[in-house]
């Protein structure tokens, strides 16, 4: 399955989806280990490195982009960033992250994608292709050792 958005930052990458339906805050979003650090966030403790991180917009401080800059400087960046809709914080975060990014999709990402889906993100054309669903996990495609989540990823 393939769907289209607006190309935001160039590059092509494959990786597994991490759905952040509630996004992350603009302050202390990630721990030093690169895991989501917001108390109460359904993704608390989940690592973002190497993931295709789908963020439901930005939230909180203008330090939002800085959270992603720190990830890059510590080698913990997501493999790509997907945003259902562009906002000013998310665009700035894409520039400092320097990873392929696509936004402004013609379909609802959160109803199409599941945590752990293997996808290819093309930040040059704005195309996202699902290569394998979370249930069809292929070891060759695996990007980390984390098991797929057992329940709803982010409610």
């Amino acid at each position, binding site marked *: 399955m393939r769907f289209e958005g*607006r*190309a*935001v*930052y*160039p*590059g092509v990458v494959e990786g597994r989806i991490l759905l952040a339906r509630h*996004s992350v*805050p*603009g*302050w*202390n979003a990630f721990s030093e280990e690169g895991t989501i*650090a*917001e*108390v109460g966030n359904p993704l608390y403790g989940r690592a973002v490195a190497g993931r295709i991180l789908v963020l*439901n*917009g*930005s*939230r*909180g*401080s*203008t*330090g*939002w*982009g*800085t959270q992603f*800059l*720190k990830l890059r*400087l*510590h080698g913990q960046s997501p493999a790509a960033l997907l945003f259902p*809709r*562009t*906002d*000013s*914080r*998310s*665009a*700035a*975060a*894409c*520039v*400092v992250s*320097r990873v392929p*990014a696509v936004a*402004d999709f013609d379909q609802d990402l959160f109803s199409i994608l599941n945590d752990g889906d293997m996808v290819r993100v093309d930040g*040059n054309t704005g195309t996202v292709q699902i290569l394998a669903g979370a249930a069809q996990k292929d070891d060759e495609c695996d990007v980390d050792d984390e098991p797929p989540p057992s329940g709803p990823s982010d409610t």
Partner: protein
Amino acid sequence: MTTASTPSVHLTDYENRMLAGEFGRAKQKALKFIVEYAGALGAEHLVEVRKAQLFVGAHHYLRSIESDDIDDVISAMYLNSDDRVELEGFGCFVQSDAGAVDAERWRNLGIEPAQQMRNKLYKERLRGVGLAEGNSCASYLIGFVPLRGEHYVSTESHALLFMNAVWGACANADSIEASVCAAVCGRTALWGMHVAENRAGTYLIEVDAEVSSVRDWDLLGYVVGKSTPSGEIPVLSGRLPAPEVEDLKSCFAAMSTSGSAEMCHIIGITPEAPTLAAAFTGGAPKATIKITDGDLQRAAEEIGAQGRGPVEYVSLGCPHYSLKQIQYVAEWFRTRRVAPGVRLDVWTAPATLENARSSGFVDLITAAGGQVVTSTCPLVSQAFPKVDSMAFDSIKQAKYMASSTQAQIFAGSVDDCLVAATAGSWKAIGR
């Protein structure tokens, strides 16, 4: 290394010359960032910015770059540059946001001498290229006044929301890096709140709740922020009294903590919303959300600990207090004292501190055992005592501090906090 494609961004001759490096490498790097950012947004043009409020100083997060060379850090952390460039000047007026250190009272806050020295060097470096010291998040209280239609940038999310909403000024809450780059090159993306037709309300918020105190406005802001999706513009209507500046200061601080609003209309109050029709520029809201007393109560229960308990640290002034708020605290302590074993910090801008001092307010608070401190806050400075319990009169501070400390955190009204500071325990009941 890849760079963002920017086919959609049209530059003027002056901007092209800057991008080619004619005005120095720092401006070149800054404009390169802004052009990439504009491309990421899908913006077609840039716009000149006249003033900037910037979060600059020896902030803890800058230590991601292991270097004592300030230009190394500025290059990597602000200008998105892998090469070291030297900042030679700004492209507009620049006033500092709240920073990492109170340069006068750092010892009282437990800030290490090395951190004070580091911050001093940062500030000297930046003053050397034109930084004006404001040192407050609530810049709009101390003379940073972009007027209606004026383009500016700000690293302070709540101040930006205030200035956009209350004065009709134009900025996006994009990022620290985008704001610094815009300040250096004097340009930002002509997108979002910089474009008049994008400023119309999209979400109608019908308030059917008792909103009669700063605390109520704080809670209302939190609920509105949580209820308004990213990219939408809330329009507040309903049972709302005319707010004072302190009400909106707290409302917008909470709103920009729980959400990402960059603009907010209040019917009959903010200049672009004299009527409901004007706020939506004749269109219909995408959604209508009703906020009740129950919603505010649930927000109060979500932020901070419930019930009673000892309090060892009380922090007032997020966002930085106005002179009126300092007077209120001073009057409370005219006949009372801070309980033994409790530390009370009252945060404000350095300029406001001087007014509070000459008004006698600082002496009253100091004599009671508290202190008035400036330029930073517990969250930004990380200068808070290592205690087991804290109290804040700010949802923003309470919410963000929860990820900085294991201490039990109470959040409530200023009166709740003053009672706690005087008694050494939290007794707040209700919201």
